[in-house]
């Protein structure tokens, strides 16, 4: 439903572009277009290697598999399955995201066989000790931010990008604002700069190696997060992206976390 409203909104805005558009309206319009451009994929699965690097260059890695179900009228449902480090093997995290409302989250701890509902207040906290916060990896719903168009810039490889400022509208974000570069052709995120609560530049996230799947959906092979304040970084390398695999809400049940492999 939300998608239809958004689409109608885009059509209305497109019809009204003769009237001068404010920077805020233009920012929202591009964010909405990007969201529409990347909708309809249904469900997807992928594998990820997360490499953490500290300031002295020491690395450690985690292997995680993800299953995602696109939300219709609500946010996406996501399942993360941890393969390494070995002591957390079998741990599963189930997330139901909902725009501005806090996400619902359950954690399955295999040693105890315990399913724990956890608070999702900890949006700014690190995911698995990495430089990615929970909020960086969550489903990016349009209503999670307010937008402001800053201009057009070249953003590498001969690409042109929309530069947009976005301010988190949800509670407990660790950021005062983000600057996002989205390529003008396919509306893919290319770079995000994150500014902390003291308005200092905290991190930069860059996407590399975009590939097109099932003729429409672009996913990057690599996401790289650099923390400018600590010198630490985290690299996510994505593998085996599959779309429309036939997942349904049945596969995103807190009761079934124990048997997920």
């Amino acid at each position: 439903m939300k998608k239809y409203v958004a689409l109608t909104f885009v059509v209305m805005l497109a019809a009204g572009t003769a009237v001068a558009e404010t920077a805020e309206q233009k920012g929202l319009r591009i964010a909405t277009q990007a969201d529409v451009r990347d909708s309809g994929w249904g469900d997807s699965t992928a594998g990820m290697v997360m490499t953490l690097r500290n300031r002295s260059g020491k690395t450690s890695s985690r292997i995680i598999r993800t299953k995602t179900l696109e939300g219709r009228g609500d946010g996406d449902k996501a399942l993360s399955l941890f393969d390494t480090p070995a002591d957390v093997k079998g741990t599963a995290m189930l997330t139901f995201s909902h725009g501005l409302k806090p996400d619902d989250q359950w954690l399955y701890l295999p040693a105890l066989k315990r399913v724990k509902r956890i608070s999702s207040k900890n949006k700014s906290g690190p995911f698995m000790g990495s430089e990615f916060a929970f909020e960086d990896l969550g489903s990016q719903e349009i209503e999670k931010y307010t937008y402001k168009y800053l201009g057009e810039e070249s953003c590498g490889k001969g690409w042109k990008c929309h530069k947009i400022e976005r301010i988190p509208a949800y509670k407990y974000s660790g950021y005062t604002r983000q600057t996002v570069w989205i390529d003008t052709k396919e509306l893919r995120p290319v770079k995000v700069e994150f500014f902390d609560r003291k308005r200092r530049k905290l991190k930069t996230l860059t996407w590399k190696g975009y590939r097109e799947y099932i003729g429409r959906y672009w996913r990057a092979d690599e996401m790289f997060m650099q923390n400018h304040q600590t010198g630490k970084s985290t690299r996510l390398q994505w593998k085996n992206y599959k779309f429309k695999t036939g997942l349904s809400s049945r596969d995103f049940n807190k009761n079934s976390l124990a048997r997920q492999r």
Partner: protein
Amino acid sequence: MKKIIFTVILLSTLLSHVSAAEWSGNVAVELRGFLSQGAWPGQGDGGISVSAQPEFRHQWDGGNFGVTFIPFARLDSMDDERSHADIREFDFLWVTGDWEFRAGISKVFWGVTETQHLVDIINQTDVLEDIDQEEKLGQPMLRVTRTIGNGGIDLFLLPWFRERAFPGIEGRFRPPLVIDKDLSSYESDDEEHHLDWSIRWNQSVANLDFALSWFQGTSREPLLLQAGEALAPFYVQLKQAGVELQYTGEAWLWKLEAVHRETTAENYNAFVGGFEYTFVGINESAADLGVLLEYNYDSRDHLALTVFENDLFAGTRLALNDPQSTELLAGVMYDLDFNSKSFRLEASRRLGESYKLGIEAHIFWDVDPQDPMYVFRKDDYIQITLARYF
């Protein structure tokens, strides 16, 4: 022994036929030191212990079929009885649509609270491993699950009862007389073959996660009867109705577990409830600090075999959220009737990619002679565990 040989043959046959076989698990060394001499003659002062838990899992047909095999064994230098082995899990899974069927030896966990696991009744507690009630023996079962929305209904048929194992003469956490498992007796004429059954419905609605359960069968916790120089476990028949409830707010978790239990001897109620409040990102760091408060009640009052008859637990949980997943949980249990206190600490940290260091301590003080915990008053200990995961 025959069972073990059969298991090994079956497993090796299975292994030679599957391709995507998956082994994982851990081996661990544990050092335990008791701070005082035991209250009862013969008790040791600590020692070294090694354990192994290999885990085999295989799934096929897109996860619609699966086999799990998890044996466990421990060798303990102090207490012969604590040297023990068990098949934690050995089950077969079949999933079809909204239905899941499991047959074999399996393990389940019910509950939401931290101080005790009151509602959790399917598996026998392995008290030799730890006194925290979190280690369980494998339970033979047939389990049928029907998932409904983000929840479901589970039906359990439990054809074989697992007796609780107790520390030997050298062991700690025991009463003055040793509990002799060989003297076990049952209220039911079917003894350990009594067919126990259970049903549980759990659901998640907005910020609320709840479960209702019913159990009918052999009590997992025996009464202890004096039999000469030893204590003999006596297992009564039990009916238990259970409730689990958790409200998840932004920083608050409100939790409740309650049971009503009926046996031929008595009917009683017990509950544990409280909250956990989390301060996120303390001191502008990545660390989270939680504050926990839970109250434990048992209507059996001072006759209770439980140490949780009118007790308050106050504790704290620290998660550094660092790459090594450093965590600490510590707290004090305070008995409001007897003013007895016990302190517990659990901390862990990953070393490198595949080792984990754990520290555990339990200290008792001001324990009143009338408190059921009195028999443990000299069993303060500190334990260090190093586990290698593979």
